[in-house]
């Protein structure tokens, strides 16, 4: 884990003190709302439907147990006893009072956390693979690069007022679990032909109202040039990104309008200029700084363990529910005798991504005791214990079960991404959470869910796509149609390294018709798949969307809809 140095600590505390003064001046009337609003947004504070909302940054989705306990404490003391983990690996509180927010930010600073750059047209919290440092398919832990980017981008004076918000994600593994191709910049750690480790740089991806698959702007970038190259990309974007139209202001539009070759040429020219003529040395990180960061993410002292455990095997034999949870919620770890535990925040009946104070405390305790003091937040709105000895699985499962956190549905149909939607969000056009709950309830039979196999349903309550519906195997987009909620369904999206946007199947559905529609899609899949190994996504890629379209819109209905 990265720890603040004295500079970081002072900087964050000073920001809190400044904001405390700004809140006081707003309350006294010395600041108008027009003056205050950009200041609160710079501290991650929005005004939503029912109340203020605070978005807290969780850099690269990594927390220690003390931080998780503090998040739980904040939820209990100043909010409504829960927090909402988001698709950008952050946590949001839905009910804070303005007068309490300086104290909340102070409490965050006490555990080296903040809400800086979680809003506004700046470089947002850098995200990463939630299995970083643990995944077996990893070339290198992506978090030192993400931390370097965080330090470079925090309070960067040149990039405080970009044309639009800017999101960076980093992955160090072959399998892209960080959705890098849907980010403004995606960084993938790769080996070149000489066996050196460097970065593939992807640019211009994004979801939202204009979904675009990111394109590779550099196949291999030497590690020491990461900041200079990103600075070059940001400079070109900052100069030429459109400021005349909010909906065309993201870098993806610039890259599309310019063309990749032209955009790349400008970036390379700026990059060369930065390195060779002007401020180059300041953008080559001090090796001592890099060393300190890398040490902070050095692997924990893993025990040497056999890959099997007799007590675990006995429990697996005697406890089918435990065995099912292990089968579904564990991922192979790089170290023998260890595993990665995914804790589903998608129990049937609950909002995806919500965790109560008590649940956060349980996860913190488990992380401290069994996972080298680490927790991760995934973009899929689950929590991860990244470094667990297999022999500890029964104890962990029992504790999770007691806290309502032992749902065995990771990567299955109940493991749904859903944005807060119209139940909370001022931008939303339809509700997301009730749709997710209805689907999870309908497919609550775990045997049926396992028969269906891997399935990624992603739901957004508006065109802004916080619920990643464009890259869902089944994507659901909630809209307002004549004052009534209406849900469009897309098929065949893929969030991985083969990122693909889903295709819309046809006219939208009323809320009560969404579950039957999903059921028809599932039945169609089960009827046409070649075998159990052909997942839903593979089947869609093989046969195309037509059979699914026919299932949702039989010819008679199609004629009427037309």
């Amino acid at each position, binding site marked *: 884990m990265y720890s603040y140095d004295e500079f970081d600590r002072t900087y964050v505390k000073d920001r809190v003190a400044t904001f405390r003064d700004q809140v006081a001046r707003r309350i006294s009337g010395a600041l108008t709302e027009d003056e205050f609003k950009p200041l609160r947004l710079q501290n991650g504070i929005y*005004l939503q439907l029912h109340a203020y909302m605070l978005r807290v940054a969780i850099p690269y989705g990594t927390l220690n147990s003390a931080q998780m306990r503090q998040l739980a404490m904040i939820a209990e003391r100043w909010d409504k006893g829960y927090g909402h983990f988001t698709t950008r690996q952050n946590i949001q509180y839905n*009910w*804070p009072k303005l007068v309490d927010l300086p104290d909340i930010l102070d409490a965050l600073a006490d555990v080296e956390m903040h809400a800086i750059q979680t809003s506004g047209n700046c470089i947002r919290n850098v995200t990463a693979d939630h299995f970083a440092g643990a995944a077996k398919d990893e070339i290198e832990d992506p978090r030192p690069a993400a931390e370097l980017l965080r330090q470079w981008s925090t309070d960067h004076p040149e990039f405080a007022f970009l044309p639009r918000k800017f999101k960076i994600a980093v992955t160090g593994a072959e399998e892209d679990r960080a959705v890098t191709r849907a980010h403004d910049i995606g960084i993938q750690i790769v080996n070149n032909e000489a066996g050196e480790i460097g970065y593939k740089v992807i640019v211009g991806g994004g979801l939202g109202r204009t979904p675009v698959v990111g394109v590779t702007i550099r196949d291999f970038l030497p590690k020491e040039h990461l900041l200079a190259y990103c600075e070059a990309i940001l400079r070109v974007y900052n100069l030429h990104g459109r400021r005349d139209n909010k909906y065309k202001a993201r870098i993806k539009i610039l890259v599309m309008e310019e063309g990749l070759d032209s955009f790349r040429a400008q970036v390379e020219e700026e990059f060369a200029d930065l390195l060779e003529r002007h401020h180059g040395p300041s953008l080559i990180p001090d090796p001592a700084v890099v060393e300190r960061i890398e040490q902070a993410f050095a692997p924990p002292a893993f025990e040497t363990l056999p890959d099997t455990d007799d007590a675990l095997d006995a429990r697996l034999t005697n406890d089918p529910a435990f065995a099912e949870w292990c089968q579904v919620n564990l991922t192979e770890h790089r170290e023998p005798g260890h595993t990665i535990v995914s804790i589903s925040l998608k129990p049937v009946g609950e*909002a995806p991504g919500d965790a109560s104070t008590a649940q956060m405390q349980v996860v913190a305790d488990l992380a401290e005791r069994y996972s080298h003091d680490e927790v991760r937040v995934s973009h899929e709105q689950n929590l991860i214990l990244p470094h667990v000895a297999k022999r500890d699985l029964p104890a962990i499962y029992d504790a999770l079960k007691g806290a309502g956190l032992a749902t065995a549905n990771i990567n299955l149909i109940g493991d749904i991404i859903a944005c807060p939607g119209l139940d909370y969000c001022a931008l939303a056009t339809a509700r997301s959470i*009730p749709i997710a709950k209805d689907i999870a309830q309908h497919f609550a039979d775990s045997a049926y869910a396992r028969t269906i196999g891997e399935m990624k349903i992603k739901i957004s309550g508006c065109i802004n796509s916080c619920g990643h519906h464009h890259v869902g195997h089944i994507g659901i987009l909630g809209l307002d149609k004549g*004052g009534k909620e209406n849900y469009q369904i897309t098929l065949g999206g893929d969030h991985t390294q083969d990122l693909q946007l889903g295709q819309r199947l046809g006219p939208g559905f009323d809320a009560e018709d969404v579950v039957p529609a999903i059921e028809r899609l599932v039945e169609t899949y089960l009827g046409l798949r070649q075998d159990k190994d052909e997942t839903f996504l593979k089947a869609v890629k093989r046969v195309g969307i037509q059979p699914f379209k026919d299932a949702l819109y039989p010819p008679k209905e199609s004629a009427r809809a037309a």
Partner: protein
Amino acid sequence: MPKAPKPQLVSANDLLEGHVLYLGREGVWTTSRQQAAVSTDKDELDALAAKASATRQVVDVAHVEVTLEDGGTPRPVTLREVIRDRGPTNRPDLGRQADPTLLQTGSEAEGTAHV
């Protein structure tokens, strides 16, 4: 032929706590929707809101289209404003709906699950 103006009320969020408020008939901000001033005259409501601004600090002032129930209680028309008035539909324990003193009588007590 121009459409007849629809009844509206004025809503906002409390500066300090963030919760939903309505502009009352007496020209003060209130948590009670029953006491909200309703008019088809936008200018009249704006004038009332200007007077109320001295009594309580609010943010995000907006006009909200309503229908009037039999007893004269204004009810928001759009789902967005219904949810904003009551609270998240997935959590009946949260928001204004969790406070019985803020709940309405009659049909509105049924909740928003099927709005």
